[in-house]
């Protein structure tokens, strides 16, 4: 068999690092620690590891096998497996397009925070002053300086999704820059991407190690770590574990198929699949350790500030000497003063806060809230904050860019496989056009209501549709293409048949799990009624829950439908084409006679 001129990775290490860079993304840093906190550390790790072995690993193995065997992007690969199910490949590409459009906005935010870290005092440390220079801006006082910097100065968020405001110049510039960086990395194709991933895959680990060392030495870090490992019993942990594994490994988007298509035919992807999946989960756990030490530090800091505030309030109201009240005996003092001077105490009773370390730790945050608000709050209280800030947001940037490279590859690889497009366009032009298109559409996320649209895309574009795609994938390979045929293909590639464990998980366990998740998602949606979102109220200085207006719900529906409908649509079109061909054949055969 003659080797065709398909570009390939310079060495297998680049392929592994590309997969790691793609799979290890922001979800490992901002979703996994949240889930750990919700379900109580130890209580979540067990379902997570079980799901990894039973669901994540087999599916990862499957996608790599398909890509490496078919040597084409997702559209070509699935069409080759079965012409009726070529729609799966197209659905993957559609989901990847949605993903690339909204994901790069996160990189724009990372850039924004990095650029703003080059200042004497970080801009989110203090509230800005109102015009008469005597008080702080009310919105900032009601919430906090970090909230204010995120919602007002970065996003300039409007109060609801209907109120779209204009494009924010700062955000737009950062988004354009992010797209230019992505274009720079994918411009020359896989060869250039192979070199970039050496950096994007390893830099985040360097930062995490530095942060772990620093975090462990912060005051109060142990409180956070202790909290992480206290389990809470929760049946929903299993469902969250299953969905987290699926989305964290980036299955169903076509990126893994695209990456694997550039491998040599005999590349030992079995070992690589196991290695990458383990690295991905290991990174999630590692990132949780870092996040929880930071949580512990922040919670302890807030708790001690609360105690100091109460102490000050008491000595000011009752005119006691400064060091008379020790913060350890605060509760005793409060009861004593309440009993001795009830009238005076009544005047300040509304200001008395119950300082509780556990409630500080209980505030579980995920997503952009964790990354941009909680972390920046912790950073502002660390010494040398500018350095820590730059390190942390650069890490976020590298994680985001690494995932973006995979997403863009999932779109470009199938398009480059098409002979029509390659004949008419140079690869740089094709890549450039895709990046330009996604950038222009992505500008809509830089408007004042952009963050609400971002949440819609984040929650709906690549969740339910991916479950559907992965389910169709696994059923196609096991039952339509045939497990025996698939086994033979793998034997040709790596020299031995897959172990019976893989066969069982592919044919029985994983489809069963995914169908279960599917049913759960649908039931959840039906039970919860109209979907809601968190809108920022500038007068109250906090988020309020609002329902999505009809046009937003239509967009949600479209996001789900446009990707999933490709599968039946293509099946139908292929069926009609085949019928037409059959009719032509029978006409021709009658003519010959």
């Amino acid at each position, binding site marked *: 068999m003659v080797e065709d001129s398909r570009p390939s990775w310079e060495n297998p290490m680049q392929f592994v690092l590309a997969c790691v860079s793609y799979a290890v993304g922001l979800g490992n840093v901002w979703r996994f620690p949240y889930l750990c906190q919700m379900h109580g550390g130890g209580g979540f790790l067990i379902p997570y590891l079980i799901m990894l072995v039973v669901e994540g690993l087999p599916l990862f193995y499957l996608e790599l096998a398909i890509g490496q065997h078919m040597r084409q992007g997702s559209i070509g690969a699935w069409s080759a497996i079965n012409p009726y199910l070529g729609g799966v490949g197209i659905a993957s590409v559609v989901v990847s397009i949605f993903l690339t459009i909204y994901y790069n906005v996160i990189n724009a935010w990372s850039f*924004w925070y990095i*650029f703003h870290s080059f200042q004497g005092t970080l801009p989110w440390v203090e509230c800005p*002053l109102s015009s008469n220079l005597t008080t702080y801006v009310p919105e900032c006082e009601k919430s906090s300086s970090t909230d204010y910097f995120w919602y007002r100065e970065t996003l300039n968020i409007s109060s609801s999704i209907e109120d779209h405001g204009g494009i924010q110049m700062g955000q737009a510039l*950062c988004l354009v*820059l992010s797209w230019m960086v992505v274009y720079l990395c994918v411009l020359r194709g896989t060869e250039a991407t192979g070199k970039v991933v050496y950096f994007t895959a390893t830099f985040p680990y360097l930062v995490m190690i530095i942060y772990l060392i620093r975090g462990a030495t912060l005051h109060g870090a142990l409180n956070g770590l202790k909290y992480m490992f206290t389990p809470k019993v929760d049946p929903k942990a299993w469902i969250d574990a299953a969905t987290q594994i699926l989305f964290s490994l980036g299955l169903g988007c076509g990126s893994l198929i695209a990456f694997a298509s550039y491998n040599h035919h005999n590349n030992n992807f079995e070992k690589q699949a196991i290695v990458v999946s383990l690295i991905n989960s290991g990174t999630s756990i590692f990132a949780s350790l870092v996040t929880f030490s930071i949580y512990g530090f922040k919670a302890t800091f807030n708790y001690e500030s609360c105690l100091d505030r109460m102490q000050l309030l008491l000595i000011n109201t009752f005119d006691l000497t*400064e060091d008379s009240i020790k913060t350890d005996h605060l509760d005793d003092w409060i009861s004593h003063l309440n009993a001795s001077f009830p009238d005076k105490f009544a005047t300040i009773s509304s200001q008395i806060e119950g300082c509780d370390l556990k409630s500080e730790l209980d505030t579980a945050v995920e997503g952009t809230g964790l990354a941009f608000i909680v972390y920046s709050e912790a950073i502002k209280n660390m010494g040398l904050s500018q350095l820590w800030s730059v390190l942390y947001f650069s890490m976020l940037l590298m994680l985001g860019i690494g995932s973006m490279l995979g997403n863009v590859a999932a779109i470009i690889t199938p398009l480059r496989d098409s002979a029509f497009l390659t004949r008419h366009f*140079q690869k740089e032009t094709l890549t450039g056009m895709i990046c330009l298109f996604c950038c222009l559409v992505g500008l809509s996320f830089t408007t004042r209501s952009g963050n609400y649209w971002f949440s819609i895309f984040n929650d709906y574009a690549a969740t339910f549709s991916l479950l559907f795609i992965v389910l169709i994938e696994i059923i196609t390979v096991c039952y339509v293409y045939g497990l025996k045929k698939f086994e033979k293909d793998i034997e040709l590639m790596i*020299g031995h048949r897959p172990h019976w464990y893989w066969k069982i998980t592919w044919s029985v366990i994983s489809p069963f799990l995914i169908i279960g998740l599917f049913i759960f998602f649908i039931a959840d949606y039906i039970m919860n009624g109209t979907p809601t979102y968190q809108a920022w109220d500038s007068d109250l200085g906090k988020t309020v829950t609002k329902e999505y207006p009809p046009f937003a719900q239509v967009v949600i529906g479209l996001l789900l439908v446009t990707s999933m409908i490709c599968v039946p649509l293509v099946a139908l079109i292929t069926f009609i084409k085949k019928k037409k061909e059959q009719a032509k054949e029978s006409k021709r055969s009658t003519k010959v006679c």
Partner: protein
Amino acid sequence: MLARVLLALSLVPALALALCQPDGQDAYKVRLSIKTALGANAYEWNESEQFLFRATLAFAMRKYTGQETFNVSSVIVCNETPRVSFWFVVTNPNDTTTLIPKNGVEEAIRLSRNRINSAFLLSDKTLQFVGIPPTLAPPSQPSLPVWLIVFGVVMGIVTAGILALIISGFIQRKKKEKTIEDEEEKQERIMENGISFETLEGKDGVNNGAYSHDEDRLTQL
């Protein structure tokens, strides 16, 4: 006569005390947090420190009004607590029974706040005049926001990179096209002779991919 003078003298402090009332209309409460501000270097609050306070306040009044008639005796202090907080009033130097109104005192303090703070090695937060908010220092605004400068640098580097890659790719392709053209010319010359024997001579031989093996059957990780 002497008795009347004595009576009058004893009435003065009584009057002074009567003028200085906590929660009075023109009275201000002051709160000092010396231990918080100075820690180990904290000084004792005593009569002399009190004297300094009254003198500083008299100075502030002098500066604000421009009248040099204000004296330490114009400032009356009462209700001292171990917190180190007390109330004070400022009497009119021309008529010691009337008080300077509240906003006058406030403006005077605002004007010389820095001087008053430094006299006691304290800050706006640790020397509090209850009711007079501290004037907060506005953050320095550079002419061009710093972030734009960093953005410009990064954007420049990325643009240069993109242009470099595009141009080098373009040049590479042009070179490849040229070498292909040369090879084609060579091929044509050989073909024109029409003798297949010479085609084998002219080229290095055909590489049959079916017999080429990869270095390893299984590529190592």
